[in-house]
């Protein structure tokens, strides 16, 4: 533990850089992707393919004045975006990008990511509360109740995978899926699980990731046609920028988790290039799906969202858990 602390500190710094670059260029990717889906060119003026757009946007955001609405709770108002960013960065510490690229492998890595995700949801609450804006308030209540509701099926599904791997160690979970890509948890045939419902499990987990990161079609916290800009209505300047970065960092973490739990992490089916690149490839394919989904579907409502969680996802994931447990016992 003592020697790894340096690792951790270094990792945090790298994670901040990684999160920032990701946030910036995922915004670019999102805008370009959305534009292509809508048959527009998207940002293409600044730099080649518009690649200078994100840093320029960042400079613009930083140059703006930070306004705090009158009547707002100043301390919490400023603390909320920081609180949003902090767990997102901390979560990067334990994610293994490959055999060697991991800051601090913990034997409770899965749990740690969930714990920090829970910490992140409080920032939404404080952002909404401290803004003294009814829209922000409603949005934050929505966002948090959604996060809480979707944590349950997500945890249950994760437990299924943890049961198969017999460990909460992310490295261990990836190791267990090594071999050909038919050993991945999403494929039920050659792996340890034998559970034919694993693709469904993957779908449930992916849906929950969408909901946990407040992404469309579950972006009730920032439903612009109902609640203006949601919980960050009153935020401008870097406060808004931090929320933005945190959102994309959360997407990256959610995709990392999906990759590790279901898609075999850095495991490569053909071994053409080193594992870390496979990891990155899977990760960004998932993120592309996030973007693709966002620009395809309309938004759900709060009751549709809770119905989906309680009536469909939780029963199915519970059933899946029981089935997996039974199969593990039998084989």
């Amino acid at each position, binding site marked *: *533990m*003592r*020697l790894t*602390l*340096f690792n951790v500190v270094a990792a945090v710094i790298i994670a901040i850089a990684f999160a920032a670059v990701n946030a910036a260029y995922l915004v670019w990717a999102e805008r370009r992707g959305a534009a292509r889906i809508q048959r527009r060119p998207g940002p293409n003026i600044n730099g080649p393919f518009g690649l200078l757009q994100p840093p320029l946007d960042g400079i613009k955001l930083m140059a703006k004045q930070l306004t705090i609405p009158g009547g707002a*709770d100043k*301390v*919490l108002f400023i*603390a909320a975006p920081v609180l949003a960013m902090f767990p997102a960065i901390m979560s990067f510490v334990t994610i293994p990008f490959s055999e060697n690229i991991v800051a601090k492998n*913990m*034997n*409770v890595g899965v*749990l*740690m990511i*969930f*714990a*920090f*995700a*829970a*910490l992140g*949801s*409080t920032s939404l*609450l*404080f952002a909404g*509360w*401290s803004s003294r804006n009814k829209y922000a*308030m409603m949005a934050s*209540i929505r966002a*948090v109740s959604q996060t*809480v509701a979707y*944590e349950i099926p997500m945890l249950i599904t994760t437990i299924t995978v943890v049961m198969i791997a017999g460990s*909460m160690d992310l490295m261990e979970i990836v190791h267990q899926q090594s071999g050909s890509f038919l050993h991945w948890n999403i494929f039920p045939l050659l792996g340890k699980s034998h559970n034919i419902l694993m693709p469904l499990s993957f779908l449930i987990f992916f849906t929950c990731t969408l909901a946990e990161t407040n992404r469309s079609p579950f972006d009730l916290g920032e439903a612009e046609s109902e609640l203006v800009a949601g919980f960050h209505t009153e935020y401008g300047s870097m406060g808004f920028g931090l929320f933005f970065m945190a959102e994309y960092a959360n997407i990256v973490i959610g995709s990392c988790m999906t990759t590790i739990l279901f898609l075999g992490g850095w495991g490569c089916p053909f071994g053409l290039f080193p594992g870390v690149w496979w990891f990155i490839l899977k990760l960004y394919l998932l993120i592309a799906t996030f973007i693709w989904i966002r620009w395809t579907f309309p938004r759900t409502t709060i009751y549709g969202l809770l119905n989906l969680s309680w009536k469909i996802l939780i029963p199915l994931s519970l059933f899946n858990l029981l089935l997996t447990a039974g199969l593990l016992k039998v084989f």
Partner: protein
Amino acid sequence: MNQNIASHPELFSVEGLVGVVFLILIAITLTGGIIACNSNRVVRAVAGLIVCFVGVAGLYFFLNSPFISMMQILIYVGAIAVTIAFAVMLAAPEEKKKFGPTGPLEGPFAFATAALLAGGFSLLALNTDWPVRQKINDGSVEEIGIRLLTEHSMVFELISIVLLIAILGALVIARREE
């Protein structure tokens, strides 16, 4: 004083860095606690509580139990604190009055009581000869799981029932009168 390994690490060593982190954690815990107990706004008190619990989770980490540490964050911060914050938003949409101590004497009395207790416990802790540990805690989750489902299985079941009843009870109590 006691049987603990007395270590005096240098500031600029790895151990020293760990010590600094520990001191920061203590500061976080105590600051959070003070905010939670003294803030004039309920929401800030909740925020203080969250800070305090994150600090406590860090302390657990230093006590070689990452599992409990993560559970602390997951349960206390992700569930309890959020629930309290929710209740604040439901029950006190506008903070009509500042809420401090009730009477002029209640604050000092409370403080005296608390100080007495803290002092007493601390003295007790310092002046006791604690026995030596016999088995090293390696932070294994497996061990906890096995113990939970073998030795403590009865308690485990009871706790589940308590939680279930608590949730049902909470629903019944908070339900709107028809």
